[in-house]
Each structure stands twice: as C-alpha cells, then as structure tokens.
C-alpha cells in the first residue's frame, strides 16, 4: 500500500514539474538524488541542498542539470563510481564528490562520460578520488573551475584527475588538479584547449598528451609534478604562456617531448626544473621567446631531433644550458640570450661578435658519469671548460648560436 502511494505521489510530482526544478534535501520531497534522477525528465534541473548523500551509482540517461547548493557532499555507497553520464547535454555543477576507492579492474571516476557531447562540469569539488572526471569518446564538453585533489601514493595505484580518451573539442579551463597520477591526461584527443589550470603535486605528469593532435595549452602553471608536461606521439601542439616550476627530482622534467612534430613552444617560463625541456625524436618544433631560469639543464636534446628552431629565448643561470647526443646540425640555436656568455659587441648591433657554444665539456662528462656532479662550480671544471672552449675537441663544433644576444630579450610574458 505504501509503495503504491509512493508511486502515485511520484507520478504526481513528475507531471507537475515538467521542464522545471526538482529539489533534493532533508526537508524536501526527495531525500536521495537517485530518486530525484528517476523522477526527472529531459530538461529538468535537480537542485541538491547541502548535506551528505550516500548514493548508489547515479546513472544519468537524459539531459538534465544537476546543481548543488552550498556544495552537498555525495559519496557512492560502495566507494565506486559516483556519477555515470550516458546522455548528451548534461551539466553537473557545484557538487562535492568524494572517496572513490582504488581499483585495478575498473577505472572508477567521480564523473564518467561515455560517447556523449555538450556536457558541462563546473565548480565542483572532487576529493580523495581515484579518477576525477573521465570522458570517453565524447566531444564539445567543458570542464571548468573544478578543484580535484586525489591521494595518490604511487603510479600503479592511482588515476588521473582529468582523463580524456578519444575526445574532440574539449575545453579544460581554470581547474586545479592535484595529487593524482597525471593531472590532466589526453589520449587520442584532438582540437582541444587546456588553459589557465593549476596542476601541482602529481606523481607522474602534470599534463600528458598521447597521440593527440591540434591541441593547445596556455596560461597553465605546472608545479612540483614528477614532470610538468609530457607530450608524446603528437603533432601540432601549441604551448604558450605556461609556467613550469619546481619539477625537481631524479628524473624530473619541466617539459618532456617524445616523438612530437610541428609544434610551437612560446612565451613560457621554466624555473628551477631538473631538466627544463627534454626532447627525443622531436622534429620541426619552434621554441622561441621562452625564459629558462635556474634549471639544472635548460635543454637536453636527444635521439633524432631535427629541424627544431630555438631562437630568442633567455637562458638565465642554468647549471647547464644544453646537452645533446646524436646529430644536431639541423637544429638552429641563433639569437638567444645566454647569461653565461662572455662575448663582446664591438659593432654595437646588439648581438655578440663571436658565436656562443652552449654545450660545455663538463656537461658531457656529467651526463655519462653523474656522480661527477659533486665537482660542479669547482675551479678544475672552469679550467676544463675554458680549455675546451678555446680549443674544442670533444664538444660538437657546429653547435653554436651565431648571433647571441647581448641583452636579455624583452617580450610579453603575460
């Protein structure tokens, strides 16, 4: 009898709120979001009031907006996936989603989307998550202004804060992504933009591109991640106005480039990274107007990296400016400012009159025998480097900046 009443009542509610609002809360008709979802119809808006909701997996199968008021806390009753979106045009805004357990079989996420478009995830707080926001085969979505903090301990048992797989036209903007394996992960993602995010303290990479083309990221800050950004097997990537800071550790990079072509790296600041840019198999990458400040290595160019242009960058106080292995003749290093350059400019044209050779002999020794780094800044090393500079024997003769700038290059750092 009770059950029948409830159904009748629900039907009544449902019909009376077509295209309008459902409210979930302690003193509202719906005490659970699951029930509100069941009763909702396309185009409805569900408001969830502040409170703690332990729910089964919330399956959204028609276009609705799910909006939290004062960040209601939602948890899955088995600590598995909280919200699964199986409809286009779903918006999820202002929720506090938490506590998702680590699984080695399923990629449990706070929000997962499969084969949908026009979704919006905005202003949510995600905490203690395995995966945060997970999009598969989706397009035209916006992930904005979310705070996503995980609890990752090691690479094996952790997921990514934002995970995009086979997506197109996604905008990831103004989020904070912390303490996951990767902050933002893109695999087979094209024509997407990642901008103005703060990505910090992730175990592996802050931002990770795999097989993704025609994307751009700008205005982001990558701080204290295993590596700031890794761009692998991708092409036509624009990287602008980002900060890569304090990516410091035994194998840490500011920016790792592996098998990437036809891309652009401009106006970024690399500060205090173990290696600011590491490139392997990078071709036709245009690196200009960046600042490399106080890094262990400003750039390491390995493998078959060819036809790259490194121009008009400022290299300031790096322990080593450049390390190379393999052939590097086709890369162009002209017109940069090197703070360790002691050149002169007699004809006052703003560029030094003699070319500058950024590869030091000691940098080659230290690459082969890392424990020699204990001799950094010793007189012996200065002597060795000076001798090599005067009479190059072991460093590549043709690798030089033919027009090194005498002054720090001024450009808009935004």
């Amino acid at each position, binding site marked *: 009898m009770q059950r029948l009443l409830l159904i009748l009542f629900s039907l009544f509610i449902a019909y009376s709120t077509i295209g309008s609002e459902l409210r979930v809360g302690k003193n509202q008709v719906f005490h659970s979001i699951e029930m509100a979802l069941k009763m909702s119809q396309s185009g409805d808006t569900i408001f969830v009031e502040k409170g703690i909701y332990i729910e089964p997996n919330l399956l959204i199968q028609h276009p609705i907006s799910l909006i939290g008021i004062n960040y209601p806390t939602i948890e899955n009753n088995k600590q598995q996936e909280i919200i699964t979106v199986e409809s286009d045009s779903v918006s999820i805004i202002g929720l506090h989603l938490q506590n998702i357990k680590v699984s080695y079989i399923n990629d449990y996420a706070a929000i997962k989307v499969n084969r949908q478009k026009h979704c919006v995830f905005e202003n949510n707080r995600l905490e203690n998550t395995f995966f945060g926001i997970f999009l598969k085969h989706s397009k035209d979505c916006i992930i904005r202004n979310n705070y996503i903090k995980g609890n990752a301990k090691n690479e094996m048992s952790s997921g990514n804060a934002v995970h995009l797989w086979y997506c197109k036209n996604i905008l990831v903007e103004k989020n904070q992504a912390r303490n996951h394996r990767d902050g933002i992960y893109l695999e087979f993602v094209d024509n997407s933009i990642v901008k103005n995010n703060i990505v910090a303290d992730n175990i592996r990479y802050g931002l990770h591109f795999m097989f993704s083309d025609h994307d751009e990221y700008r205005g982001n800050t990558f701080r204290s991640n295993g590596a700031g950004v890794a761009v692998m097997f991708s092409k036509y990537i624009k990287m602008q106005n980002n900060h890569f800071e304090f990516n*410091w*550790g*035994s*194998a840490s990079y500011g920016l790792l480039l592996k098998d990437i072509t036809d891309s652009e790296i401009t106006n970024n600041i690399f500060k*205090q990274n*173990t*290696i600011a840019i590491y490139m392997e198999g990078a071709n036709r990458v245009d690196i200009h107007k960046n600042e490399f400040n*106080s*890094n*262990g*290595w400003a750039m390491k160019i390995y493998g078959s990296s060819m036809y790259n242009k490194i121009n008009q960058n400022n290299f300031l*106080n*790096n*322990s080593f400016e450049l390390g190379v292995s393999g052939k590097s003749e086709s890369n162009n290093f002209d017109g940069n400012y090197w703070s360790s350059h002691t050149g002169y400019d007699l004809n006052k044209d703003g560029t030094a009159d003699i070319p500058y050779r950024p590869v030091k002999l000691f940098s080659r*020794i230290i690459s*082969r*025998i*890392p*424990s*020699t*780094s*204990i*001799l*950094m*800044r*010793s*007189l*012996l*090393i*200065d*002597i060795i480097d000076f001798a090599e500079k005067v009479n190059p024997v072991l460093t590549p003769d043709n690798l030089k900046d033919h027009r090194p700038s005498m002054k720090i290059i001024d450009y808009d750092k935004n």
Partner: protein
Amino acid sequence: MLKIFKYSLFDLIRSNWSIAYLAFYLMVSSSIIYMNGDITKSIISMMNVILLLIPLVATVFGAIYMYNSREFTELLLSQPIKRKSIFLGQYFGLAVSLSLSFILGVGLPFIIRGIITSPELSNFLVLIGVGLILNFIFSLLSFMVALRFENRIKGFGLSLFIWLFMSIIYDGILLLILIWFESYPTENLAITLTLMNPIDLGRVLIMLFLDTSALMGYTGAVFYNFFGVWQGILLSIAALSVWLLFPIYILLRYIKKKDF
C-alpha cells in the same frame, strides 16, 4: 696566549698586507655586486672568488708572517712564557686578522646593498662561514709549513703546492677516479672524497644552501640526502673541525721538540 694574540693582532691589522687584502676584497665584492645587479647572483659569484682566493691569501700571508716574525719569536721564547701560548697566540692573531679583512671587505659592500634585510641573509652567512673556516684552516697549514722549514723558498713552495693541490689537483684526481670507476656506483666515494678536502666541502655546502640547481638529477638527490640533512651537516662540520683540530694537535706536539 691572549697577550701574544693581542699583540700579534695589533701588529697584523696595521700591516700593509692586511690593508691591501681589505681593499682587494672591497673592490672585488663591490664590482661583483655592481656587475650582477642581483644579490643572489652576486653571492654565487662571490663563492668562486672565496673558494679560490681565501686559501691562497691565507697560505701566502701565513708564510710571510711566520718567516718575518722568526727572530721576534725567538725573543718571545726566551721570555717566561709557555711555547704553546706563543704559537697559539700568534696563530690566532694571524687567522683573526685575515678574517677581519675578509669580513669587512666582503661584508661592507653587501651591507650597503641591503643584505641584512634581504631573504638571502642566511645564504650570505653560510658563505661568510665557509670563508672563515677556510681562512683558519689554510693559515694554520702555512703557519706549520713555515715553522717546519726554515728555508723560505722551500716553505713557500710547499705552502703554494698545498694550495694548488687542494684547489685543483685533488679535484683532478677525484674526477679521474670517478671516470675510472664509471661502471660502479660512485656517489658514496664522491661524498667521502669531498669530505676529505675542505675546499670541496665548503663548495658543496654553499651549493646546497644557495645554488640547488647545480646539484641535480638522481645523484644530486643522493648528495642532497647526504649533505642536506642534519647528520650530513654535522659530519661536514666534524670534517672541517678535524681539519682544524688535528693540525693544531700536530703543531702543539711539534713545537715541544722544536729547536729555535
């Protein structure tokens, strides 16, 4: 000892050498600050100057002083005073006068530049501390050499060789050893050999405090984990103390039997 110390110091701080040394340091620090503009960079540049020149100046100055005061030392020895007091007094007079020139010469330009209120103050103090320790160690070494060898040419030669050895040759040998044992993990060997040379130790300590970009990668982490924690710092201080106390012990033993 204090009496001898007082008069040696009085004598030394008025010598032309001390004044020249002070002027030299004023000039070098001012021009480094002027050329770098930035105070952090100035401190790093000063590091190279200090690691090279403090041991050299202390060596040369120590030997000159000892040879010049030989006859006066004889006069002192004929007075009712212990040998120990004479030589410790003279040594500390020498080391302290050198240290004063150094502190004033480097300190004044940096104080004018505003180091006291700068966040770099602690780094600057590390730099000064390392400079002082090297001063004390190398003036002691040349003091002993000058005491041991009455022939000035021999004494100067040996003092300069000690400086050259510690500044450059030792590092060359260290580099060759590390290259030789390339296929083995040599981090601990590198640390041990660094602890044994006060100039290297001073350099690594300064780098750990103010120039972390210099020590990087996996090995940098190993070094940092050693020198950066308090056990490592204590061990470094212990190593530097041994460099000071052991020669003093040798000195005191030697002067008991020495003829003048």
